[in-house]
């Protein structure tokens, strides 16, 4: 069976090689919606042709309008975005969801203050709307007010504790602000919520390693190992992490742990070199010299 990621990639290649029939575009937009990926350029470029297509059912038509609108705003293609927005506004005049798109249009033009005022107005109408609260966080982050973004996001998480995306965003914001302890807490939360997602383990390990200290580094090695395990040894980022963590443990002073002598570091460096030899033979020599036993 072909994986969904592969299907998406095939459709993407077809579009980039000049395919422009509405069937392919429709399938592509569906995959993008389903896998929740950011392909704004392709979506806005080709999606605009699909807006009036007869292929779309009533429900999908408006989903596509919303999708193309966001993608167009992401690429600063304001003409297409305004076109979508007008149609959506005519169809759903009182909808908060359309209101959110209007706010995003303000954001795309750099009118942050106006966008915030607009979101406040929408929140007064429906105070429990999660999407609007998230936009407020995004506005603050986009302007560089990370502290305010953290505040807003904490407020949001007080009422929507099970939102995995929000925890991930908060973790990243804390890392940006060098607040590693708090970030570690967020990533712990994420690991319990989605233990099969290797990126959560990896980020948690990176935070632990960055914090430093014997215990944290030893723990980070465990989480790097979990990430390597989950990726089947295909992720260079996880392997490099494991290798640096084991090297750091070797250099630690103070009481030794029996686990410190594990061969994980050597295995990681071997796998790193193997991956480079397979994917980029020109650089394999340099990497080999770098990760060689120190």
């Amino acid at each position: 069976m072909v994986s969904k990621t592969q299907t998406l990639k095939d459709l993407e290649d077809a579009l980039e090689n000049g395919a422009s029939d509405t069937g392919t575009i429709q399938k592509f937009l569906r995959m993008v919606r389903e896998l929740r990926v950011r392909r704004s350029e392709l979506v806005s470029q080709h999606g605009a042709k699909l807006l009036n297509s007869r292929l779309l059912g009533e429900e999908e038509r408006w989903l596509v309008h919303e999708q193309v609108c966001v993608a167009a705003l992401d690429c600063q293609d304001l003409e297409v975005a305004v076109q979508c927005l007008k149609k959506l506004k005519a169809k759903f005049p009182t909808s908060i969801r359309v209101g959110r798109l209007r706010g995003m249009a303000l954001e795309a033009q750099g009118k942050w203050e106006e966008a915030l005022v607009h979101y406040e107005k929408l929140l007064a109408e429906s105070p429990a709307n999660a999407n609007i609260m998230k936009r407020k966080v995004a506005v603050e982050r986009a302007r560089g007010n990370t502290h305010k973004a953290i505040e807003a996001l904490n407020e949001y998480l007080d009422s929507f504790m099970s939102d995995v995306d929000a925890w991930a965003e908060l973790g990243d914001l804390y890392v940006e602000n060098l607040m590693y302890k708090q970030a570690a807490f967020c990533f712990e939360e994420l690991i319990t919520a989605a233990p099969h997602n290797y990126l959560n383990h990896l980020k948690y390990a990176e935070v632990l390693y960055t914090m430093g200290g014997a215990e944290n580094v030893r723990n980070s090695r465990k989480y790097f190992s979990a990430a390597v395990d989950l990726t089947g040894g295909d992720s260079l980022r996880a392997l490099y992490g494991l290798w640096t963590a084991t090297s750091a443990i070797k250099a630690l002073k103070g009481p030794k742990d029996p686990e410190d002598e594990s061969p994980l570091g050597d295995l990681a460096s071997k796998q790193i070199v193997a991956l480079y030899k397979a994917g980029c033979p020109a650089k394999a020599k340099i990497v080999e010299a770098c990760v060689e036993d120190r």
Partner: protein
Amino acid sequence: MGPLPKFGTFSGFAFLCYAAYSTVNYRNELKMKGVEFDGVPFEVLLQCILGTIACLWGGLQMSGELLPIKSEMNDQCPEQLDFRGDFISLNHRGICLPPKSIE
């Protein structure tokens, strides 16, 4: 894979069928004697257990080698896993790029 697992599964099912058959017979007998039914006899229980074990073993042998449970997320790159559509930021370097022309 030899014929043994198939035979195991088959005989397991045969055991189970025979156990069902003998239970029905036993109940009929009890009805004729006018005794209350309060559980199956020990032989039938033994047949059930043996049949289940034989089916289980045969099925496991026939299904081939067991694979480790693996996360399917590792064909997705970190950028993809880390993208959160609800928090999408519109303030990025794309603003400075020339707009793409649509033919």
